[in-house]
């Protein structure tokens, strides 16, 4: 290899450079790590300078419940896709803590701009999971009112929403309120021009926005080191605002870090980049096959850092939850899964003319004319015999006249 050859993704040295740490060795003081962690993978509560959570017993239990229910929605949706009820599904498996921790850090008036994988944040914003399924079933393009729960539409063109979040935050500044905004995106989107432009705008206007990057290590098949040569949280430094890396599988740390970043934003200290270091335990979407590009051993290693298991251990160890509580959450999850399944199966296809709705806020003559023409066209079949009314043994239509 000559000196000018590009370093191939997957090179261990390159990987080490973007990791900046591995998960710290068990005997290392957590404070030495670059990773904010308040709950170890074994469920031990640890301290990290500058970040803390002081929750009631009920609040700890509520976070656990969120994690379990969110995963259950995800598992059910994946099953529904496999059974042909959804066209596609983007699983959040493994990212529950990053989403619940950040989602629960938001105040009601704060605004969230999600990507297409933020089902856990949607849950925290009280968005009906069936609304999300409608997008993946193909009966809507989202279709919810973002102002309803302060949860914007899913963004599919990755990174585009970070600019919307920044503009919204600039609006908050003009309004003079103390609301804040959170923009979700991933390690892949961190390469997008829009994300970098959002960093510039947010920095120069000091906009109250938190850039919440879930680094789940994979952008479909491309590993992190194909997106960056430095740890992602350090990107913000060049734009002039702080960045912090949090254990994205630790719901307590994610909550603490996001809450602080939002508080900084609302108190006029401008944007923060939060890199939630996590792992996409599932495929990119149900259409993806991760066995083509990553090793099973990697997944096995991350399973030991599962966000739900560590919270469960924590609750057990601190006698905050026992079999009754865990059983009760499981039962609730079963109920939720049944609700999701039933609602999905009952979701009817929209009427054809719905395709013409809401193209414009004000009447547009071309759309109106095309709608009318298509309605007439459909109407022209009204007198035709429905196909399912034909007897099964009937000759093909037109067969007689062909004789």
């Amino acid at each position, binding site marked *: 290899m000559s000196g000018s050859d590009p370093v191939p993704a997957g090179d261990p040295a390159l990987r080490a450079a973007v990791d900046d740490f591995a998960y710290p060795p068990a005997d290392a003081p957590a404070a030495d790590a670059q990773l904010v962690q308040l709950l170890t993978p074994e469920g031990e509560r640890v301290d990290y300078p500058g970040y803390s959570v002081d929750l009631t017993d009920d609040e700890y239990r509520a976070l656990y419940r969120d994690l379990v229910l969110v995963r259950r929605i995800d598992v059910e949706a994946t099953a529904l896709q496999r059974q042909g009820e959804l066209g596609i599904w983007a699983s959040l498996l493994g990212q529950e803590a990053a989403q619940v921790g950040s989602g629960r850090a938001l105040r009601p008036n704060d605004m969230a701009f999600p990507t297409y994988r933020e089902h856990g944040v949607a849950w925290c914003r009280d968005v009906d999971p069936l609304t999300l399924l409608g997008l993946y079933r193909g009966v*809507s*393009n*989202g*279709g*919810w*009112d*973002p*102002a*309803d729960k302060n949860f*914007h*539409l899913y963004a599919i*063109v990755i990174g*585009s929403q*970070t*600019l*919307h*979040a*920044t*503009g*919204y*935050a*600039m*609006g*908050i500044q*003009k*309004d003079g309120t103390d609301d804040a905004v959170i923009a979700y995106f991933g390690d892949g989107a961190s390469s997008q*021009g*829009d994300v970098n*432009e*959002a960093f*510039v*705008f947010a920095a*120069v206007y000091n906009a109250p926005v938190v850039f919440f990057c879930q680094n789940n290590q994979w952008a479909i098949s491309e590993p992190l080191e194909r997106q960056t040569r430095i740890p992602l949280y350090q990107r913000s430094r060049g734009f002039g605002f702080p960045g912090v890396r949090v254990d994205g599988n630790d719901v307590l740390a994610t909550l603490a870090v996001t809450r602080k970043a939002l508080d900084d934003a609302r108190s006029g200290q401008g944007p923060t980049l939060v890199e939630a270091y996590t792992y996409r335990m599932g495929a990119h979407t149900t259409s993806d096959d991760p066995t083509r590009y990553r090793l099973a051993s990697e997944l096995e290693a991350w399973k030991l850092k599962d966000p739900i298991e560590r919270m469960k251990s924590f609750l057990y160890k601190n006698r905050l939850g026992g079999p009754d509580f865990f059983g009760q959450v499981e039962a609730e999850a079963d109920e939720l899964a049944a609700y999701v399944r039933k609602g999905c199966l009952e979701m009817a296809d929209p009427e054809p003319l719905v395709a013409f*709705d*809401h*193209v*414009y*806020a*004000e009447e*547009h*003559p*071309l*759309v109106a004319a095309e709608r009318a023409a298509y309605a007439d066209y459909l109407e022209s079949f009204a007198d035709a015999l429905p196909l399912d009314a034909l007897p099964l043994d009937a000759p093909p239509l037109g067969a007689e006249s062909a004789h």
Partner: protein
Amino acid sequence: MATVTLAKALNEGLRQAMETDSKVLIMGEDVGKLGGVFRVTDGLQKDFGEDRVIDTPLAESGIVGTAIGLAIRGYRPVCEIQFDGFVYPAYDQIVSQLAKMHYRSKGSVKLPVVIRIPFGGGIGAVEHHSESPEAYFAHTAGLRVVACSNPVDAYFMIQQAITCDDPVIFFEPKRRYWEKADLDPAVAPGPLFASRVVRPGAHATVVAYGPMVRVAMDAATAAEDDGHSIEVIDLRTLSPLDMAPVYDSVRRTGHLVVVHEAPVNVGLGAEIAARVTEECFYSLQAPVLRVGGFDTPYPPSRLEEDYLPDLDRVLDAVERSLRL
């Protein structure tokens, strides 16, 4: 009544819109202290403050993307794209985000964003400063596209675009910025999304918009010498197209020539020709002809007089049509 240039008329229109609605913002590169490279926003930052007339970082996608966010928050941003050829970095934000949000949200998110684009050639500029990208936007559902051709329209159309609840791509004929007309702000304007017959005639119809309206008018005057009476229609709105005045005219004249600076291939002229063929087939005495830029990149400016349709090329097309 005052005599104003087209640039000044836009400036006055923007000022009026900002005075009427405190949610109206102006964003763009050099729109503040400098007043825009064409001075269209001259003096507005001084009078309305940096909070409402915002000099942005030099990033077009960022300008439009943050304007979308501001609109979601309830503002009515007017973005200036400095030159036509600089709009493409914002293309995703315009075509995938701005245009589709209302549809995707089933009508709950309105994005009343105006994107002003000085367009077209004729000022001897270097490359990427003389383009006519209107067809890209007119092709996109969810956007409205208009082009003003004169100071009076500029004054009213910019205000009407700002009050529209849909995103509007607002094309300004940059080589006409310095043309003057008498403006009476008290006159009630016609609707924004309407074409207009600007010169009646009997023998042939010429449809144009933006900077080409002046060329079409001059051609019509010149044609009088040859005994040809040409009706000129200023299209004004490119999405939606307002075809009724065009159909009405073609049914009377039987001849149609469409003129634009943009390349002819898959341009607005193609759509207009197709629709006129559908609606006025038996009135047409000749095929619809198009006069436009070449299907080349915009050439070096020393060649732009060849590229840009002028009076002679318009008359040539009219005569070819009338001979048929």
